[in-house]
């Protein structure tokens, strides 16, 4: 691989391809291919989207969503045994008694904690548990923005129609209404807590459009939107001294005799010891599943995104929704090898960057909804054979990023995308001067544990917020609605859980639902070797793994 000659960070043959892109650029500026018709969109999804390719999914054999189709990798983990046997756990000693237990400290979990506290639950009555650190979450990496219909020429109703359309009209309409209605106050809340959104000279929010949105309503904090939002909320959280645990993933929920969720079983990642939490209300905010690498795709997600919340909630009887669809972000980095799969925000395209094939043609409207855009890139690479093949065997198309400075003036890219410019620079590539290579990457869990407008699930005592929930986005999420989902439903569940907890006493604790689940697995003939949740992916070298023995 290092015998290749490199020019400005790219192997020579890729550099030659860039020259073709530069040649066609003048006639491409400001001229976009036509948007697809609804039929064309349907056709390309059927042809190229990983969700539609045969062999990737199967019906579930156990539980409340039995017979629902989900990706194989997910079915493997749902049809799997607990990490520990209920017989090995003593529930006698309760380590933490709390009013509200929040599982997961991303944007949703942290918002929930703040609103629960604002609703009158004292800090000591809240416990936030994290598998890794507080803030290790997909939220931290969200780049593009947060949607909210606050412009004079926009309205929550227009936003509502966008969300329903983007979700192929499978979303829960009452939940979507709450999402779009609460959006402006979520932005206002963040501003009052000190979050800094991009503004123009008059002090108005700079708002951009996104794939599938009819108006410019994306509020951004340069290309660190999620990081800015989460670090502000986390700073306020820490100032209130709300109890928080780190490196204690939840490996099972606990239930009482009526099946209500009454707490959780934590397992210490560093010490191996378990802890018992009793809670009057539990909010599940565990995020996504990118590290499952569904269909072998790379991912934008953080290290701990392994679908834990869906699995433990399912064992407790929670109903799932739309787990048959997976969102692949159209533009994950495809070169160099070290950053394969990392997010290159949609905002690049809303700022003018165009997907371009090896012939220098803009082959797709840059802002189709994500599933359509991703399918178009896959088609271009693998059916039309117009992609570029990297030295590591990845295929991709160019994203013509130099267009951003051309359209918005010198320095525009550095101003809007400082993080990304820095990332490519670290690997020797100047994305202001040259296009970058992209390919779809596993990005978002569209569905999840079914929610209602207040974040309630079908299991009493269990609330849900953020990426782990299902019904907000239907079968496809639009850009800027994920951080919005976290903020709106994080806040709502904080309020709803507080109200619920006030009416409750602590319940009895049992793993009875797990025992029942084990019986279901046995009856379905599922082998005992499969265990879940996996907690962390494993990237250790094959040679070392072949000689690894656990002796201590």
């Amino acid at each position: 691989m290092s015998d290749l000659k490199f020019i400005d960070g790219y192997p020579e043959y890729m550099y030659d391809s860039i020259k073709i892109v530069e040649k066609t650029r003048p006639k491409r500026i400001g001229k976009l291919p036509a948007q697809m018709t609804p039929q064309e969109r349907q056709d390309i999804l059927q042809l190229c989207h990983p969700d539609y390719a045969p062999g990737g999914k199967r019906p579930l054999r156990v539980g409340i969503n039995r017979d629902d189709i989900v990706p194989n990798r997910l079915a493997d983990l749902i049809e799997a045994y607990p990490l520990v046997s209920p017989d090995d756990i003593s529930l006698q000693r309760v380590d933490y008694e709390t009013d509200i237990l929040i599982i997961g400290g991303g944007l949703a979990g942290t918002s929930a904690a703040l609103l629960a506290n604002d609703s009158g639950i004292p800090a000591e009555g809240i416990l936030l548990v994290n598998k890794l650190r507080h803030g290790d979450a997909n939220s931290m990496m969200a780049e593009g923005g947060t949607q909210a219909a606050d412009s004079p020429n926009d309205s929550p109703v227009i936003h509502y129609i966008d969300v329903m359309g983007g979700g192929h009209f499978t979303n829960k309409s009452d939940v979507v209404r709450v999402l779009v209605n609460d959006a402006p106050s979520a932005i206002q809340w963040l501003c009052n807590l000190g979050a800094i959104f991009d503004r123009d000279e008059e002090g108005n929010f700079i708002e951009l459009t996104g794939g599938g949105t009819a108006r410019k309503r994306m509020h951004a904090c340069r290309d660190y939107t999620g990081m800015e939002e989460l670090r502000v909320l986390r700073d306020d959280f820490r100032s209130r001294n709300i109890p928080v645990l780190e490196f204690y993933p939840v490996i099972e929920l606990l239930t009482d005799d009526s099946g209500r969720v009454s707490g959780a079983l934590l397992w210490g990642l560093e010490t191996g010891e378990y802890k018992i939490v009793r809670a009057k209300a539990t909010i599940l905010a565990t995020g996504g599943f990118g590290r499952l690498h569904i269909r072998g795709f790379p991912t934008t997600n953080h290290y701990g995104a392994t679908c834990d919340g869906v699995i433990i909630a399912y064992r407790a009887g929670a109903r799932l929704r739309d787990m048959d669809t997976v969102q692949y972000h159209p533009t994950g980095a495809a070169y160099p090898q070290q950053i394969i799969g990392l997010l290159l925000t949609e905002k690049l395209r809303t700022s003018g960057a165009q997907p371009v094939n090896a012939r220098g043609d803009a082959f797709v409207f840059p802002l189709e909804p994500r599933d359509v855009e991703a399918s178009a890139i896959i088609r271009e690479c693998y059916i039309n054979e117009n992609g570029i093949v990297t030295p590591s065997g990845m295929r991709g198309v160019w994203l013509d990023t130099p267009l951003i400075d051309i359209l918005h003036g010198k320095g525009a890219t550095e101003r809007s995308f400082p993080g990304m410019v820095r990332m490519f620079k670290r690997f020797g590539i100047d994305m202001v001067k040259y296009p970058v290579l992209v390919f779809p990457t596993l990005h978002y869990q569209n569905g999840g544990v079914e929610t209602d407008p207040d974040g309630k699930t079908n299991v009493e005592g269990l609330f849900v917020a953020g990426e782990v929930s299902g019904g907000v986005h239907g079968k496809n999420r639009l850009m800027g609605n994920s951080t919005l989902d976290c903020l709106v439903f994080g806040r709502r569940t904080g309020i709803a859980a507080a109200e619920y907890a006030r009416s409750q006493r602590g319940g009895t604790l049992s793993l009875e639902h797990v025992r029942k689940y084990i019986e279901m697995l046995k009856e379905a003939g599922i082998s005992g070797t499969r265990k879940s949740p996996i907690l962390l992916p494993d990237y250790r070298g094959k040679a070392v793994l072949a000689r690894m023995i656990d002796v201590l």
Partner: protein
Amino acid sequence: MKDIMDEIARANESVTTGIGEETIQHWVKIYVLGKEHRVPADLTIMQAMEFAGYRFIRACGCRAGFCGACATVYRKKESYKLLTAMACQTRVEDGMYLVQIPFVPAKKADYDIEKERYNVSVFLKYYPEIARCLSCNTCTKACPQDIEVMDYIQAAIKGNFQKVAELSFDCIQCGLCAIRCPAEIVQYHIAQLGRRMYGRYGMMKEKNVEKRVAEIKEKKFDDEFKEIMSRPVEELKRIYTEQQLKREVY
């Protein structure tokens, strides 16, 4: 179509599973906590350590350069200089001699910004050690995000919140500045306080969102929602298609 999926999966194996040795053509030697490891030349420090058999619990977060979990301090062959990097964003080099700093014991002060006054006293109140800044620039040299750390500390001492916010914006709170500072200042916590104060008091309240929040509270859109939510799906599809055709693009 399934073959395409298999091809894609094969092309991505190096980032979705552990890496095998067979295809590696170029190797380097790195030293993790003093221990020598032979690793593929073309990996990041994080990937190389995983190749060598380390399974991260600490020091691994977003794997994309945003979260500051994988802060790494290292020396290069034949050099006395102490360098810093994010393990997930830095390629290995032959002779790299490294350690990770997954946690920095920097205390964060507790405050309610609603109750604070918008001037320099807020920094002196919560982080009085800021006055000990020697202007030695060690923090700036330690920062893996190219931030002018010393400059924003000096700006904070002068009460220039806007400059603190602008200069510190890309901070991922890895802690390397704080652990290297001879004056024991916790730069990234100070920056967080400065940014929040600027966002709350230094920036004007955005007029459009204030207006819209009030309109929603007054139920301005309730009738429209009732109407749109009562329409059958086929009609909604038509409305959506029309809306998309008339969309704002740039």
